[in-house]
């Protein structure tokens, strides 16, 4: 990726945990995060019994979680699981109904504006000003954080390079593609050199190429020690970006861990997917029994969980079963979710 500026340098040589911009954008942030070297630090975000209710509807039901400094933390779950409501509470734009929430050691109910000054937010719904130019969107946003015009402009130029929109600086937002708008929103969220970057469904609705470019940029931020908190209903996104995640379903957290540990705990190493011709799957009963460690029958296919997917495939052949297609793959978070809730993640 040929981005300009200091953002592309990464931390491969030093590996020191640093905010992405402290090296270049330090004028407004004289206090570098020196304390970040200590591993056993208090969590950046801590929630206990966190609850959000809208009248009779409970969107978030007494959830607990901690996010550590420099961590990349995800909320995985289907639409309506309560991810966005949780994010809005962390973003200090939606009052906590019940429970405790602490962000950067501060309480959102009394210190909302102060916390928001340290957050970068990429909302699910675009809120770019389509009537302003790409650069002005960043500059005015910097002004909201109290940057002077010159500093806001300097950061805007740098960040536009980072998200590869430098050449579009003077264009209007209107003609930008979905992927470009998301990148611009990410650049905007970085204008205050945030301690925590909140991303709500960052790649929903983007084409695969745009998603990968976005992931690559986020990965770079993660490498530089930015704490990322994101929601997604794409398991590949969660596997790509998250060090640790919680699976949410119906306003509650149903599992928590690293992608790998969740797969180990709730799934098997490999999955053999069998698709049978129309009408055949329903007739199969005993023929499938005993295959692998566990079997899930979905409406359109059968999933066989095992340590060795190829061995299962061989067994299927040996039993004389003829699948239309047979696929052996690594187990994914999708399988974890299916195991935990009995439903697929995206429907």
């Amino acid at each position: 990726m040929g981005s300009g500026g200091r953002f592309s340098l990464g931390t491969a040589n030093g590996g020191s945990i640093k905010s992405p911009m402290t090296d270049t954008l330090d004028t407004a942030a004289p206090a570098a995060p020196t304390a970040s070297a200590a591993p056993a630090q208090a969590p950046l975000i801590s929630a206990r019994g966190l609850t959000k209710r809208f009248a009779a509807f409970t969107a978030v039901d007494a959830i607990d979680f901690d996010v550590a400094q420099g961590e990349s933390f995800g909320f995985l779950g289907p639409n309506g699981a309560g991810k966005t409501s949780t994010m809005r509470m962390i973003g200090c734009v939606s009052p906590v109904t019940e429970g405790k929430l602490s962000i950067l050691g501060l309480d959102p109910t009394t210190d909302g504006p102060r916390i928001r000054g340290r957050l970068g937010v990429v909302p699910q719904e675009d809120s770019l000003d389509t009537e302003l130019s790409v650069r002005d969107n960043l500059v005015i946003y910097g002004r909201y954080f109290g940057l002077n015009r010159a500093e806001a402009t300097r950061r805007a130029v740098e960040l536009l390079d980072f998200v590869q929109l430098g050449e579009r600086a003077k264009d209007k937002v209107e003609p930008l593609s979905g992927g470009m708008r998301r990148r611009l929103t990410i650049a905007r969220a970085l204008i205050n050199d945030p301690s925590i970057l909140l991303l709500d469904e960052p790649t929903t609705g983007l084409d695969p190429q745009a998603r990968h470019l976005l992931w690559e940029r986020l990965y770079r931020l993660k490498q530089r020690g930015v704490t990322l908190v994101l929601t997604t209903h794409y398991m590949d996104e969660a596997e790509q970006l998250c060090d640790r995640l919680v699976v949410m379903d119906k306003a509650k957290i149903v599992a928590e861990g690293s992608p790998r540990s969740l797969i180990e705990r709730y799934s098997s190493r490999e999955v053999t997917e069998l698709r049978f011709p129309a009408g055949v799957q329903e007739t199969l009963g005993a023929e499938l029994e005993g295959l692998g460690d566990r079997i899930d029958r979905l409406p359109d296919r059968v999933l066989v969980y095992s340590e060795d997917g190829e061995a299962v495939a061989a067994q299927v052949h040996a039993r004389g079963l003829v699948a239309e297609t047979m696929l052996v793959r690594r187990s994914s978070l999708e399988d974890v979710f299916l195991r935990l809730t009995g439903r697929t993640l995206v429907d």
Partner: protein
Amino acid sequence: MAVATPSFESAPAGVPERSYFASVGAVFEHFWLLYIRTWRGNVIGNFATPTLFLLAMGVGLGSYVDKGSGVGMGIPYLQFLAPALLVSTIMQGAVFEATFPVMAGFRWVRRFHAMHATPITPAAVVGGFIGWLAVHATLVGAIFALVIVVFGAARSVGVILVIPVATLTALAFATPIAAFMAGQRDTNAFNSIWRFGVTPLFLFSGTFFPIERLPEVIRPLAWLLPLWHGADLGRALALGTVGDDPFRHLAHVMILSTVAVLGIVWMLRTFRRQLEGAR
């Protein structure tokens, strides 16, 4: 305000806490940026509207009025019309600013939500937006006053005082309408506001003819028409007749100010609800 946990005091401090007025200033700046982006067209429009109206109504229609019984007070129709027309035009502009831009801010462009994700509070959004409404109204009012002077329709330097009256009237209209529009999901209400509110007020609030010409029975209703207070006060200032009935004009100021303040209080409620209550 709670004291921060010490371990984070020295952590990535970065941006200092903003004062309310600095936040208001940033919100104002956003709307200013949107305005100057198309300032040529805006300013030309701001000159064109009063020019056309004063030509058609003041000069054209006025020549007939003056040949007939006139508007009384021994002044030409143009001088009678101009200050009140200034006030009602500024009022209309402010009503427009309080409808579409408010809906855009919450629903289409979502710029109010974008602001709220930063240290900007709902109260600062309200403050900055009202500041913008006031500055915009004053700016357009000043241009209108300039056109009045060019037309020779200013009877005294009092025409300058019509500008703040127009701004106050604009706020008395724009703040409750902005508060109301904040909770609207579509623009249906906008059409009703215009059809049943703004247009009748524009026609019957003593801008084009003295309300004394209305049937005696409905004349007291003028006191209920917010625009009349602004038009009557503006005209009295421009003609230098405020001293004739000081209590009436003081009452105009009080009524307009009260409505504007209530509008602001209502805005604080609805803007906060929109920004914090969304699912």
